[in-house]
């Protein structure tokens, strides 16, 4: 069941588009904001609210990189795996994250704190390597810097 708050927030988005199906991505974002990820049940509920089929909603949800259809941890780490970061030492940064967190891409730490995912170029290539944790961007990454950053997310 979607909460009253979620339904309210989704309906607010309807005003920005000529018909409510166009707010499909916005609706997925709202659910994810409240629940971290979008479950099968959420998809069905959204289908009812938007008067679309659940398959249609799922085809949209699974298309986009930043809609999660599986559970994720409290903070999602998006590590840039594109070309400038590759040149500037992505491998070292990735290995350090894997070792420190004990997870690989797509996995979540046992304490449910972090999920790590690769992401295309974060548009900060002059400060590569780069990653996002939660909503925050970190640049010019080194193993030392990463330790400090991870410790600040409890």
């Amino acid at each position, binding site marked *: 069941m979607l909460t009253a708050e979620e339904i309210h927030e989704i309906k607010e988005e309807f005003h920005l588009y000529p018909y409510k199906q166009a707010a499909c991505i916005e609706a997925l974002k709202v659910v994810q904001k409240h629940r971290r990820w979008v479950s099968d049940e959420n998809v069905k509920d959204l289908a009812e609210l938007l008067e679309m089929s659940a398959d249609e909603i799922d085809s949209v949800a699974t298309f986009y990189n930043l809609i999660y259809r599986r559970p994720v941890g409290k903070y999602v780490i998006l590590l840039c795996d594109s070309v400038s970061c590759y040149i500037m030492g992505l491998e070292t940064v990735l290995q350090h994250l894997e070792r420190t967190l004990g997870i690989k891409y797509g996995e979540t730490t046992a304490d449910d704190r972090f999920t790590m995912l690769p*992401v295309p170029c974060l548009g900060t290539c002059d400060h590569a390597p780069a990653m996002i944790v939660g909503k925050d961007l970190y640049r010019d990454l080194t193993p030392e810097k990463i330790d400090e950053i991870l410790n600040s997310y409890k």
Partner: protein
Amino acid sequence: MERPLTKNIRPDGKPLFIKEYESLGGYQSVKKALAMQPKEIQELVKKSNLKGRGGAGFNTGLKWSFVPMQGEFEHKYLVANGDEMEPGTFKDRLLIEGNPHQLIEGMIGTAFAIQADEGYIFIRGEYTYAAEVVAKALAEAYEAGYLGNNILKTGYKFNLHLHTSVGRYICGEETALLNSLEGKRANPRAKPPFPQVSGLFGQPTIVNNIETLCNIPHIINNGAEWFNGLSLTPGDGGTKIFGASGKVKKPGLWELPFGVTLRELLEEHAGGMRDGLKFKGCLPGGASTDFLVEQHLDIRMDYASVAAAGSRLGTGTMIVLDDKTCPVGMVLNLEHFFAQESCGFCTPCREGLPWTEKILQKIENGKGEMKDLDILQFHTKFMGPGNTFCALAPGAMAPLQSALKYFREDFELHIKEHKCSWK
């Protein structure tokens, strides 16, 4: 040298909000534009030789002129393309975060020129700070009467909204972007009909890049002649935000006239290569442009010159390859990106890109055979221009085909030595 786009951006890149922006002459172009005829603005921009900064380099005023100006429409739309997911590209972020009102002002002038009444600023989901900055600036612009149902009490109506995306490079392709804005999967659309005639929700629509739009206030304020005079290349108006990343001494962004040489960018602005490294090549305008190498250092950075050298100016932000980074590894990284980001709609791209990636991985792992190079070569033709539904796949082939041309011996070395000698 004038730098209209960036002169008001603070060195630390912190955003300029409305009071300050207005005190520096901001929003003058809105008053001026609203007193002009829409067609007059279109002509002015056409004459300014402003070309689209999203990569394709099409004359902006000419593009606008395809929007029907007669007849009844439910809406006409203007969309700012802030998807910026092309690897190696980081210029639009600076313009959005550093001076959001310049973008909004440019959008008002543009909207008036095509008589759009609704607009969206489409920003990639990872740019959370840029989205915050735009949301605040939009609220300020509404408050000040520059946006809304009766702009500056002239009766002109333009409502502008922020849309944050949820990832996928293909959203940057303008027709895919429109599908995404409609809440759908971001597959590109067939053209014709072109978006100018039937775009967002079936209505006439212009999609322009962020940097393109940020030029509009300056053209309206200072005229076409002035704008052409900013450039060293006749026919390409204005300045360009150039950039460099990779192992140069001072990676960054610089607003410079069209027509500066690649050498000047690399040596003066980017400070040359880091100590102990040599320049091996660069992708001059993002991941989907062909490599340029040492013999090209003296070419001028404008659309025609870069094209004559076999590449594209693209987004103008170059990725520099040094002699200690494996070129096969770099191309593998690029093709991995393109394979992941293929929207899957057409077969050559959906199947061909993962295939290409696999072969490159095999070569990089020392398991390649000479005939693999022929297969790669075949793919560059098979996914070249005209063989796929949109320009993503041909873009993906650009770095590959040029790497096969300029770095062939490095590919062969991997195959002969059964390993990557850069590791």
